[in-house]
């Protein structure tokens, strides 16, 4: 058998076009995945990463009206003409939205479905369910109702269900001792059409497709998925194709070497830029990927910025970063820096004095002994009494002064979203009170908030003022949030990043809401949009707003937030200046948080020699400044917005003073 025949998945010159659109979604993509091999797909948003996954599963062209040229081969057989369900023998797929990937009411039924579909002997099914769940670290979920699972748990169940099916379709030994010996033979005999030939003996192989599987997970969930991917590949029979944004977290301690061994880079027009061993591909394309706004493993990002390989372990890179740490944010100093100093696109440097002054201002929003909870299931609200609730958080006291960006941290299910909803007045407080002006809030799923049929109308909805005033505000928001090119499009037809920018632009158009709440604003965004979001938050705070956001991305948090509130064990575990809280290993452990290597390195470098040094030490500000420079380097600076007028005609900032 030639190597080509044994490839688990192969595409030959695949081009995908939308009818009537001159620009292809994928342009001549050829790739080859051997059994047991892992491949990472990289590219800026809109580069066709999801299209590639859909071409392999058959969703394109069989469920989506797109034309495909070229050939798709699975296990050596041409499956270009086979529909999704026939390809299921060779392909397992985990979609982006885990809530839509899980279809049945109970986890074990969900897991049994693919096994039943593939005709697994009923006596072996129970054992296989346990194996597949164990592989993704979800063994304890077997008896649970799927409606009660968190996003991270759902994602693991979806992945386990995709794996469970593969173990039969590809004939791999996932079942271990419980698998009946007849299964392999049956699988071979049963295969129909083009897939029958390779079904039997050692040539059997399958491919697992993962489209951003960790986007909704906390660090523990990311670790579980990473471990599962490694274990699946180790078996040597299933190839894994992974689309992933959060490369740094996915790679873990090992850096680029912790990523899948092969990488495919797509450019903005769906063409292949590079394909080969991940370490090499990243090294050769560091600058290009960085400029395109892709997230990169830290090592590669630092290579793109400093031109020096080796990441934080390298003495050269370390020295270079220390040089930045020593550099003071005086514009002339930055410009006169010899070679690689920060460029023009700096995010504004943190200002110690202004941070300290905030404490003296009146808060825009405050909460007193707040109890946050959702109505207990099945509970009816009776007149005059509060509905019984399952309290998620209790005894929450917090104040939000103007000019501050506050991050909410905590593990999945710790109550971040519920707290934001309560602060926004959308979820009634189960106890205590919230006082202040009604805040605005952007939801994790921007589509839920869309009200207009055009982007332009969408921003103007609910904005007070005359027709001309509203038009002026809309135009300004379109420009600031890079939405001018889609101003007349339907909001539902935008890309993921554009939808996020639109929901933020529309919310911020309301000048009468001084507090902005955001639920996971950086989730699923590429580097360019993440940097843009960071910029918007800093700008809005500088204009006198208070910004509160929840996030799992501690680098984003450390870069943007002035202050961090950590939720754990049903209450606030810590509330203080970002760097001070992030230095508290005990709090991080309680909340299940892990510092990304870059943040950990910078904090260690700037750690005060004397641990009793008061907070907001100058060294901490240096660390944050370097983080902001790193974000700004290679990013595309946004136009800054003029001061925000309040109803009285004064800017919020002035009003706050």
């Amino acid at each position, binding site marked *: 058998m030639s190597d080509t025949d044994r490839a688990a998945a192969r595409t030959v010159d695949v081009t995908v076009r939308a009818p009537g659109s001159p620009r292809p979604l994928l342009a001549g993509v050829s790739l080859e995945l051997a059994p047991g091999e892992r491949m990472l797909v990289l590219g800026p948003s809109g580069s066709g990463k999801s299209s590639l996954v859909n071409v392999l599963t058959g969703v394109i062209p069989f469920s989506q009206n797109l034309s495909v040229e070229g050939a798709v081969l699975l296990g050596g057989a041409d499956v270009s003409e086979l529909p999704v369900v026939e390809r299921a*023998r060779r392909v397992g797929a985990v979609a982006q939205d885990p809530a839509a990937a899980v279809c049945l*009411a109970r986890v074990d039924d969900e897991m049994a479905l693919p096994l039943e579909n593939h005709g697994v002997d009923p006596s072996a099914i129970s054992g296989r369910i346990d194996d597949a769940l164990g592989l993704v670290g979800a063994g304890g979920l077997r008896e649970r109702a799927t409606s009660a699972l968190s996003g991270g748990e759902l994602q693991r169940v979806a992945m386990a269900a995709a794996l469970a099916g593969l173990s039969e379709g590809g004939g791999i030994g996932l079942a271990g001792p419980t698998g009946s010996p007849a299964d392999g033979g049956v699988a071979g005999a049963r295969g129909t059409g083009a897939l029958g030939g390779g079904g039997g003996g050692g040539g059997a192989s399958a491919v697992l497709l993962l489209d951003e599987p960790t986007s909704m997970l906390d660090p523990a969930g990311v670790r579980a998925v990473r471990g599962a991917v490694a274990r699946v590949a180790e078996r040597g029979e299933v190839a894994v194709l992974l689309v992933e944004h959060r490369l740094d977290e996915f790679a873990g301690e090992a850096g680029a070497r912790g990523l899948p061994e092969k990488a495919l880079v797509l450019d903005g027009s769906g063409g292949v830029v590079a394909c080969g061993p991940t370490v090499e591909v990243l090294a050769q394309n560091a600058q290009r990927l960085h400029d395109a706004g892709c997230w990169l493993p830290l090592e590669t990002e630092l290579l793109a910025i400093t031109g020096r390989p080796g990441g934080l372990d390298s003495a050269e890179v370390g020295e270079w970063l220390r040089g930045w740490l020593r550099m003071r944010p005086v514009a002339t100093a930055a410009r006169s820096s010899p070679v690689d100093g920060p460029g023009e696109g700096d995010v504004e440097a943190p200002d110690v004095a202004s941070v300290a002054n905030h404490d003296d201002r009146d808060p825009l929003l405050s909460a007193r002994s707040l109890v946050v909870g959702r109505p207990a299931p099945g509970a009816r609200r009776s007149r005059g009494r509060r509905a019984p609730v399952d309290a998620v958080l209790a005894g929450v006291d917090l104040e939000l002064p103007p000019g501050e960006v506050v991050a909410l941290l905590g593990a999945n299910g710790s109550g971040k979203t519920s707290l934001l909803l309560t602060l926004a007045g959308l979820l009634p407080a189960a106890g205590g009170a919230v006082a202040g002006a009604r805040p*605005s809030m952007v939801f994790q799923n921007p589509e839920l908030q869309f009200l207009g049929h055009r982007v332009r109308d969408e921003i103007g909805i609910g904005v007070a003022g005359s027709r001309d005033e509203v038009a002026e505000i809309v135009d300004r928001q379109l420009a600031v949030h890079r939405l001018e090119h889609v101003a007349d499009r339907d909001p539902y037809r935008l890309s993921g990043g554009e939808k996020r920018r639109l929901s933020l632009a529309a919310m911020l158009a309301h000048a009468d809401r001084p507090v902005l709440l955001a639920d996971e604003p950086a989730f699923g965004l590429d580097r360019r949009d993440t940097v843009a979001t960071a910029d918007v938050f800093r700008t809005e705070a500088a204009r006198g707003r208070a910004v509160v956001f929840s996030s799992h991305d501690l680098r984003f948090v450390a870069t943007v937030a002035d202050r961090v509130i950590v939720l754990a064990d049903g209450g606030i575990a810590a509330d203080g200046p970002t760097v001070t809280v992030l230095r508290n290993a005990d709090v991080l452990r309680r909340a299940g948080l892990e510092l990304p290597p870059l943040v950990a390195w910078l904090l260690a470098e700037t750690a005060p020699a004397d641990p009793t040094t008061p907070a907001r030490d100058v060294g901490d500000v240096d660390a944050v400044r370097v983080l902001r420079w790193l974000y700004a380097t290679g990013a595309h600076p946004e136009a800054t917005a003029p001061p925000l007028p309040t109803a009285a005609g004064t800017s919020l900032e002035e009003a706050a003073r």
Partner: protein
Amino acid sequence: MILNPAQVPDSPLARRNPTVKLAVLFLASVALLFVLDPVTPAVIYLAGFIGAAVGGRIPLRTLLAVQLPFFAFAAGVLTINVLSRPGTALWEEGPVRLTVEGLVVGAALAGRTLAIGILSVGFLLTTDSLALMTSLHQNARLGARPSYALMAGHRLLQQLPGEWAVIRAAQSVRAPLRRAGTVRQGTVRQGTVRRGPGAFGRAGFALLVQSIRRGERMAQSLESRGLGLTPRTVWRPVHVTSVDLAFGAVVLAGLATVIGVAGALGLLRGPGALF
């Protein structure tokens, strides 16, 4: 009730095979279509009521409450027949004329409505919808694709109220504020959200878009897990037990006895009663 099924409580009726129950319900309903006297359906209604209350352990209050639509419909049928059917006058006053035939046929039709109603209610309240789909798939040879598509759809339905609430919240945040401040429970809120009449429509549209997307993704997910491949196996088969068969036989025999006795006593009338 159907959107958010609290687990169906255990009872002798709930333990019966759903397909057998559905078949019994179907046969009984068909048989009742040919019965057009007031007494036979009344006896069957009574038997059905006792069966649902005792065999299904359904609380009386619930049982009566869920029958309200049937009561209303039965009352309508009775009224229309009594007032409009020609025949021997029972009572006459101006344009209003009540007839014996109208009363008899109306009562028969109303009784049939109630009898089929109580049997359906007894079935719905003791049958888990997912168990029904599983059983229909396995015992009644309903194809795997429609069965699982319906079960996935059921999950989609369950999520609807939650999604509706999220969409309403997400959109109400964007509505313009009222000028007046409100003070309540020590909470100072500068302005409350005004809800326009169009908001419902927009939220409905968002929900529709959301549901169609999710349905599409679910369909893809089911397909990519091989739903529709043959042959397929069944992990936890649902069996029709001898108790299920006995249950079906007893109920149908009871029905036949009631109709038979009614016939012997000369009470039974068929569709001929209409003419």
